[in-house]
């Protein structure tokens, strides 16, 4: 209804009255500005100018509001336009005396996204570095069992995500529009709930950061290897089992002990983790991470590139599958293995989004489609993981090499001189360098916010926190760079609280309060809690 010209200059404002007009009412003041004549919008009545700058309705409403405001005192809301008369916020422009006009964005009015954007955002957020460990985890569980577990765990975590998403709405009498899941936990479990959900959330974040550090050292090492050794001397056997063939998997994942001095200064576990400190510690100490938020697109590009890489390799190598159901053979692994909890641990982190799903879904345009969109997103994520896992596992050349050799980071199975993999590693390295400060920022905001109430209490507080996190990363990179294990332990730990225990408990309590809790439901959710605990315990024993 209120049509405004494209050129936003010199528009009249339909500012909400009561604020600006209150100054104009009193003639008691000696302020001369108050006595200025009424301003009529600049319109040329002689010219037949077809372009309307302000719509007729807006102009007349403005005139009425001006007049009515003169009839009563400035504090009297008797003649203020009611909400259904005032145009909605996105049709109101604030006119600045400097000659421009800009739109009002009220605090509670945010633009909503169509379903496809929301689905993509969820997929993008969930796709983490755990994608690199899926083939290894699939191998640990056995091919068939692994696929079954992947599907089953995906569905389970989807259900838990759904009850997390539902949880704020079941809370009566309170405005939960700004709540995230830790706030819900605080509502039901008090301080304990708040602190424990914070701690477990930190576990997932810090676990991710440690994994990032290990991977970054790995990629940096391999990039250095490629640039320094392979490029100038493509034929030199730089030790280990490298060959020139670009599509050959290698058996090496361990550090190759080079005799040359380059190897001494460029070692995956000894030196590259330390070189990263120089680059990343200062970035972590920055006050704001909004600069790094621009680079989130790199994550998508990396995943897409990985998918392409996986496809190309699979096409070149062909499938090598042989089904041995329980027994072990020299080159293959049984289809059903007892080590399957390692897969569930990895998947718990791979499908983890429960601490921010409420916020992500808030900007969905059609809220009634939330469940559908969430399911579609989980389906896409599951298919991506399945694709990568199955293809790498199947394409792994088993006659010369055993499936057991699949590394927790499947890129390690490629030689350093593989160009496609080199590009992938560089991509991922760059992407991780930009995401790492974001993760650090999230950890800092949550921890400092809860403990000190201030996101940046002082440089030394923040520095101390960063040193702790970086130190953990460096130590892990040096002594235990098995990202598969780091992922499964941190996944199972944070999953215990944020995926299984808290959502199930919250759901059961809210149903109980509404008087809707039935035996099958209570049994099923208790079973979920047990599953979560079993998941964690199994990580230690398997």
């Amino acid at each position: 209804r209120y049509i405004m010209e494209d050129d936003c200059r010199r528009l009249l404002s339909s500012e909400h009255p009561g604020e600006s007009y209150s100054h104009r009412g009193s003639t008691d003041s000696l302020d001369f500005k108050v006595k200025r004549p009424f301003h009529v919008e600049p319109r040329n009545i002689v010219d037949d100018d077809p372009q309307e700058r302000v719509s007729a309705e807006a102009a007349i409403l403005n005139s009425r509001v001006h007049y009515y405001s003169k009839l009563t005192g400035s504090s009297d809301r008797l003649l203020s336009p009611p909400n259904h008369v005032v145009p909605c916020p996105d049709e109101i422009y604030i006119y600045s005396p400097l000659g421009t006009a800009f739109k009002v964005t009220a605090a509670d009015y945010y633009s909503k996204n169509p379903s496809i954007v929301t689905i993509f955002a969820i997929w993008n957020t969930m796709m983490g570095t755990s994608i690199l460990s899926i083939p290894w985890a699939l191998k640990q569980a056995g091919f068939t069992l692994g696929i079954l577990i992947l599907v089953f765990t995906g569905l389970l975590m989807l259900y838990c995500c759904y009850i997390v998403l539902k949880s704020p709405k079941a809370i009566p009498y309170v405005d939960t529009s700004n709540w995230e899941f830790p706030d819900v936990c605080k509502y039901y479990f008090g301080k304990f709930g708040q602190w424990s959900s914070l701690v477990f959330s930190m576990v997932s974040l810090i676990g991710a950061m440690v994994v990032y550090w290990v991977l970054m050292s790995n990629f940096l090492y391999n990039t250095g290897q490629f640039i320094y050794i392979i490029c100038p001397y493509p034929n030199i056997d730089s030790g280990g089992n490298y060959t020139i063939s670009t599509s050959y998997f290698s058996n090496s994942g361990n550090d190759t002990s080079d005799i040359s001095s380059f190897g001494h200064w460029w070692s995956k576990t000894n030196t590259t983790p330390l070189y990263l400190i120089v680059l990343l510690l200062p970035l972590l100490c920055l006050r704001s991470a909004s600069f790094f938020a621009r680079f989130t697109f790199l994550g998508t590009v990396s995943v897409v590139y990985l998918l392409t890489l996986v496809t190309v390799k699979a096409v070149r190598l062909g499938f090598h599958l042989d089904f041995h159901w329980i027994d072990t053979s020299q080159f293959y692994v049984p289809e059903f293995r007892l080590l399957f909890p390692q897969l569930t641990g990895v998947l718990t982190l791979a499908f983890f989004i429960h601490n921010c799903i409420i916020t992500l879904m808030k900007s969905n345009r059609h809220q009634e489609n939330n469940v559908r969109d969430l399911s579609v997103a989980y389906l896409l994520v599951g298919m991506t993981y399945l694709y990568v896992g199955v293809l790498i596992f199947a394409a792994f050349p088993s006659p010369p090499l055993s499936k057991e050799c699949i590394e927790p980071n499947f890129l390690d199975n490629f030689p350093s001189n593989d160009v496609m993999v080199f590009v992938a590693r560089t991509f991922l390295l760059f992407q991780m360098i930009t995401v790492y400060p974001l993760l650090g920022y999230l950890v800092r905001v949550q921890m400092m916010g809860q403990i000190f109430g201030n996101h940046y209490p002082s440089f030394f507080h923040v520095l101390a926190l960063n040193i702790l996190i970086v130190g953990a990363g460096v130590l892990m990179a040096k002594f235990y760079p098995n990202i598969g294990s780091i992922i499964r332990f941190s996944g199972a730990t944070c999953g215990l609280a944020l995926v299984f225990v808290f959502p199930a408990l919250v759901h059961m309590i809210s149903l109980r309060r509404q008087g809707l809790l039935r035996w099958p439901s209570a049994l099923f959710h208790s079973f979920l809690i047990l599953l979560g605990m079993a998941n964690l315990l199994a990580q230690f024993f398997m």
Partner: protein
Amino acid sequence: MRSIIFANYIARDTRRLGATIDVEHSHVRFLGNLVLNLWDCGGQDTFMENYFTSQRDNIFRNVEVLIYVFDVESRELEKDMHYYQSCLEAILQNSPDAKVFCLVHKMDLVQEDQRDVIFKEREEDLKRLSRPLACTCFRTSIWDETLYKAWSSIVYQLIPNVQQLETNLRNFAQIIEADEVLLFERATFLVISHYQCKEQRDAHRFEKISNIIKQFKLSCSKLAASFQSMEVRNSNFAAFIDVFTSNTYVMVIMSDPSIPSAATLINIRNARKHFEKLERVDGPKHSLHMRMR
């Protein structure tokens, strides 16, 4: 509504005039010889039972116009209709020639797609109840142009020789070569009649002028001055607002800037005498405005 139409400050503490009467009563001179009595009944049953029945003949004698305002949101339709009928009976008894207008007010609170339906329903009911008197119904809201248009229609119907006025106004405008000439009622700046020689873009210009002048009058009154005339001029047009007859103001818009102001002002002054003769001078009449909340 009264404050908006008559440009009065909304008085806060002038209610509760008497111990037993919880009613706001005031009067305004309107259309020259009309005295508009305004009753703001505030949903008080005491008014209807006590004062109304006892003072009935006084209130309803010599009434020219009855303007009855209904609140569209009222939950007690039966009671409203009952009181309306009592008023009509009193009018029939005392001033059977009065014109009756019904305003269905606060229509902005009704959803847009339902407004026409609800208003039609009310109009049918009111017309049926008003027989043998004929009532004219309007739907109004202070937040759109319907209020101004309704009151302008009411005023138009109250001017005794309005067609004659319009013809004379057209002649006047053509003689002085004006683009547009408006005749306003003095107290409310409601447009009584107008003439325009070509199509104007802004359909809301009457209401806007009215609002502007009323605001100016309010500001003037704070300085204990009264508004008499105004000239607005720029390179494209010149507009003159001036007292015309005892009940009206005139606004003349000239788009030829070469005509000097003095010429137009002389023309207006000469026309004044002519139009005064057209205004009939009768005895004081009453008009009644009742508002139920």
